[in-house]
C-alpha cells in the first residue's frame, strides 16, 4: 500500500537531492493547459514529460510547468522549451509519443525535433 509511512521514506531519500535541485533548473518545459490544450490532449503530454523526467533522473536540470492559453489554440497541445542562452522552441500538436521523442532527442540529446515545431511547414 502506498502509505504515509512510504511517503515519509521517500521524503527522507529526497531531502539531499532537493537541496541540489534548487540551485539549477537549466531547461524549462512548459505545457499549455487551458481548455483548448486539455481538449486537444495536453494532459497525457504533460504527464509523459513529468514521468519521463522522473524515469530518466533529469529532475536536477529540467522542470516541467503548466501555463494557460497562449493564443494558438488550433495548434494545441503546445509545448514550449526554454533553455538558458538558447532560443525558445515551440512544439505544436503534441502527443505523449512525440513528448517521449522530444525528451530523448532534444532534452537529453540537445537537438530540437524540428518536424514537430511551429516552424515546420507541414503542420
Amino acid at each position, binding site marked *: *500500500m*502506498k502509505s*504515509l509511512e*512510504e*511517503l*515519509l521514506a*521517500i*521524503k527522507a*531519500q*529526497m*531531502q539531499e537531492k*532537493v537541496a541540489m535541485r534548487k540551485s539549477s533548473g537549466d531547461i524549462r518545459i512548459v505545457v499549455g*493547459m*487551458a*481548455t*483548448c490544450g*486539455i*481538449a486537444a490532449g495536453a*494532459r*497525457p503530454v*504533460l*504527464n509523459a514529460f*513529468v*514521468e519521463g*523526467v*522522473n524515469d530518466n533522473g533529469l*529532475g536536477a536540470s529540467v522542470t*516541467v*510547468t*503548466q501555463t*494557460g*492559453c*497562449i*493564443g494558438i*489554440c488550433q495548434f494545441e497541445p503546445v509545448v514550449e522549451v526554454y533553455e538558458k542562452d538558447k532560443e525558445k522552441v515551440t512544439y505544436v500538436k503534441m502527443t505523449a509519443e512525440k513528448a517521449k521523442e522530444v525528451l530523448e532527442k532534444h532534452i537529453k540529446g540537445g537537438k530540437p525535433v524540428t518536424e514537430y515545431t511551429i516552424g515546420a511547414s507541414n503542420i
Partner: protein
Amino acid sequence: MDELSLYVLDIAMNSVRAGASRILILLEEDEETLKFSVTDNGCGMTKEQVEKIKDPFFTTRKTRKVGLGIPFLTMLAEGTGGYVNLTSTPAAEGEHHGTKTEALFYRHHLDFIPLGDMTETVKTLIQGSPDIDFVYRHKTPIGEVSLDTEELRAVLGDISLSEPEILAWIGGNLTEQYQNLRR
C-alpha cells in the same frame, strides 16, 4: 473531450486561475447519476459574470475571445438530461468568497461519456499548483476514494508536492485506492 475527468480538470483550472488557495473536488455516484462539484475560495464572480458564463462568447482571458469550459460542460450535462449549476460570491462581497460549479449527468443516457482517469486529473492539478490545497473525494455505492494534500504536506514539510517522486506516490496511492474499491 471524451472523458469527464478532463472536464473536471478544466473546471478546476478555473479555480486555480481565480487565485484559490483551497479547492474541493467532490464526485458522487449512484446507480442513476454522476454528480461532480468543484468548490474554491478564489476571487469569485459577480452576478453579471455568472449570468454570462454559459455564453461561449464570454471570457475574462485576453489571449482569445471565446470562453469554452462552462459551455462545453453545460452542453454535455444537459445532453444527458442533467444540469450545470454555478454559484459564486465575489471577493468584494465578503470573507467567504469563491465559486462552486456543480454538474449532474444521467449515466444511462446514450450521450453519457465515461468518467475516465481521475488519477491523472488529480496528479495534473497538483503538478501545476503544488501550493494549493486540493481535497479530492469520490463517493461510489461500493466505497470511497479520497486524497487531501494538506495531510501530505504535513508529512513532506518543505518538499514540494510537484516533485516527480511525490507525484508518482500520489498516482500510486489513488490507483491502489481505486483497485481496492473494485475488489
